[in-house]
């Protein structure tokens, strides 16, 4: 599919370029975020009736994984409120152009942290505590507060959005999966960038700030680290930045060579499978272990969790590709072929999320009218009863997602294998096996 440049539309372009529409969205999101923190801390401790749990872990998660990531890539990052207070503080301004001298320390993030390993760790930390986090409002309130302050703290120490880029627990997988989205921010003409003096898109100018995500747009080849903040559209003096509509998973044609990204694919694939088993499966003993944080059963659960993600899944994958004939070192083959797991991982999460989102979506109505559980009835829906939705289409939709993910990954595997000139068959067999396990877990 040929790319369609959306920014050709004057309306879209002006909306992106102007700071006001974005600011309006930011304020709404920030208010919602602060309200979620407050609801978690002072609202009812009953998760299913607390705004923080219902709107963060059901509504937001549903929008994120079912719509935002697959269709808009880092679309969520474009409106995420977490970095805003820190960024405003860092800049000393909301709308005004940058000052000549930075207000804070403005350090560069040390090289050893300039990858997504910290994000892998922060995601796993939340994942291991997720049974408690996802059901306990005050824990959710505390974690949301901690993320806000971590972002503020990092903004005062490091340059740009260090939190988003290197620490945010969801930012890592959003970036990984944003590669499949049919939307991208790219330059129009490379030669213009090459000749451009001062590179204001990266270094900033009176028109706006240098890329908060520490990316030089001129070199953008994939969505992973572009936060769609639109700053470069404002700063580019040559009108050389475009938002394009493109085919799905276009970025995956160029497989990754990074181990942090490869392991991110395994972390996401594995945790979707573990969640499907633990949270949706019939095994009470696993649920108890996951919920009773700090007990010996939980430690066993944590060890199993990490073993599946870091040993079992990558181990079998490595065994599968070990015998493929290639001149490339095993590490590079591993990283390149793990790219094939990206669509499958995303569809695992779609299938898993469909299950609990459709089951729990009816809580949204009640929580909307009585967000703190104080007996309010703001919109007359406080007494909406819990009712699983669309139960008849759940299993077919999940099957479709998983089988679709398998086909999608198989095609990605073929392309990735062609790129590094090895056989894709072991990866396709691997995908088939894990998809079968996931189908068994979910259905």
């Amino acid at each position, binding site marked *: 599919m040929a790319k369609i440049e959306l920014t050709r539309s004057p309306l879209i372009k002006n909306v992106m370029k102007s700071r006001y529409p974005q*600011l309006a969205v930011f*304020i709404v999101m920030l*208010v919602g975020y602060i309200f979620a923190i407050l609801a978690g801390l*002072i609202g009812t*401790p*009953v998760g299913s*009736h607390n705004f923080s749990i219902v709107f963060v872990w059901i509504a937001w998660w549903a929008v994120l994984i079912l719509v935002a990531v697959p269709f808009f890539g880092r679309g969520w990052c474009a409106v995420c409120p977490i970095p805003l207070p820190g960024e405003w503080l860092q800049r000393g301004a909301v709308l*005004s152009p940058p000052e000549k001298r930075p207000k804070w320390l403005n350090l560069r993030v040390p090289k050893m942290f300039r990858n997504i390993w910290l994000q892998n760790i922060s995601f796993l930390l939340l994942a291991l505590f997720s049974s408690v986090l996802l059901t306990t409002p005050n824990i959710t309130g505390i974690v949301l507060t901690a993320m806000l302050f971590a972002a503020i703290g990092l903004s005062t120490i490091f340059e740009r959005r260090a939190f988003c880029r290197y620490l945010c627990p969801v930012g890592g997988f959003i970036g990984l999966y944003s590669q499949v989205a049919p939307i991208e921010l790219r330059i129009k003409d490379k030669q213009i960038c090459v000749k451009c003096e001062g590179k204001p898109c990266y270094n900033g100018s009176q028109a706006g700030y240098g890329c908060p995500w520490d990316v030089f747009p001129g070199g953008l080849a994939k969505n992973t680290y572009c936060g769609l903040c639109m700053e470069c559209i404002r700063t580019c003096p040559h009108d050389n930045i475009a938002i394009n509509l493109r085919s799905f998973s276009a970025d995956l044609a160029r497989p990754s060579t990074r181990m942090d990204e490869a392991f991110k694919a395994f972390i996401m694939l594995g945790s979707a499978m573990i969640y499907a088993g633990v949270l949706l499966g019939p095994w009470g003993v696993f649920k108890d272990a996951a919920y009773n944080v700090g007990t010996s059963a939980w430690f066993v659960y944590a060890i199993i969790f990490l073993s599946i993600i870091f040993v079992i899944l990558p181990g079998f994958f490595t065994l599968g590709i070990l015998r493929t004939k290639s001149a490339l070192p095993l590490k590079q083959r591993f990283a390149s072929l793990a790219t094939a797991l990206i669509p499958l991982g995303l569809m695992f999460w779609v299938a898993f999320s469909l299950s609990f989102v459709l089951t729990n979506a009816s809580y949204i109505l009640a929580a909307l009218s009585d*967000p703190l559980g*104080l007996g309010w009835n703001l919109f007359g829906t406080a007494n909406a009863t819990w009712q699983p939705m669309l139960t008849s289409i759940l299993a077919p939709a999940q099957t479709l997602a998983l089988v679709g993910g398998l086909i999608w990954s198989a095609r990605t595997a073929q392309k990735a294998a062609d790129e590094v000139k090895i056989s894709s068959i072991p990866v396709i067999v691997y995908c088939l096996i894990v998809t079968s396990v996931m189908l068994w877990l979910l259905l």
Partner: protein
Amino acid sequence: MKRSELLSRILITVAIVGAVGAPLLLWSRTPLIHAQMAENGGWSPDVIQAEVGKPIHLKLTSDDVMHGFAVGQMDMEAVDVEPGKVTDITLTFDKPGMYTFYCTRWCGLNHWRMRGTIEVSGSPSDPEPASIPLYVSLNLDVDTPHDASSIPIDQPSAIRGKELAAELPADLSVEYYLSHSPYQVFEDLSNTSLTDSKRWDMVAYIWQSNTTKESLANGKQLYAQNCAACHGENGAGNGVFVDDLKAAGDSSAQTMAGAQDMQMQTPANFTDPTRMLGGSPALLQGKILRGGMGTGMPMWGSIFTKEQIWNLIAYIYSFQFQYRN
């Protein structure tokens, strides 16, 4: 500073202050009574102030599982207190005093401990002298064993006993029934020419004639709501909480007085004739009203009315006697 920058800063500040302030303000103005399982704190607050004749509006919510709310010795329907939802209730007290409110749902092993008090102040319009319970005036020791020395071979039948009514001694007053155990009455009937089994039938008839269908029905309902969780639906001491009670007893036995504690955690078996036929209604009144010291048996004196306790006692004896075909 440019005007747009200033305006946006003002807007952001107002939005943040609003997002924090508005819910905090509304929250602080909505006093809720929180219900939690007793082991997590029970009712909070657990003391409520009220005034005679002035309706008080209570907003109740549960922080964990389904609970219920009722006030003891008050003619009211219990209301459910659901997790995360708010139940509104208005109460009006026409007499001052200390009232007990309690959970009416079997929320957990310590459900019975989920109680609080409502202190109702005001001058009594109709002062009522306190009456001494029968078990106190009879000076009964509620805690000593009271086993019957002999028990019937078959379940005593009030229907068969009724046929022998002509042979009943004339002086069987209500006080006599209340203060005597079935076994004592059985013994008192030894001066008749009746066989043991007929004497037991007559005892059953005496117990039946001291109650009514309505009392038994009320007792049955109270029993099902309040007693069956431990004592079992059929009175056999095997309610749904028994295993947990035993486990709690086992763990306390490790640090306390050993086997005695475990024994105390075992709910009474009302189908056991040795135990039940040896106890008088007055003795059972003491056990229910006061509760079992050092056992899991709670005190019900602040919850049930006198009449309700007698109805309950009449029903508990029905596990021993056949009242109907």
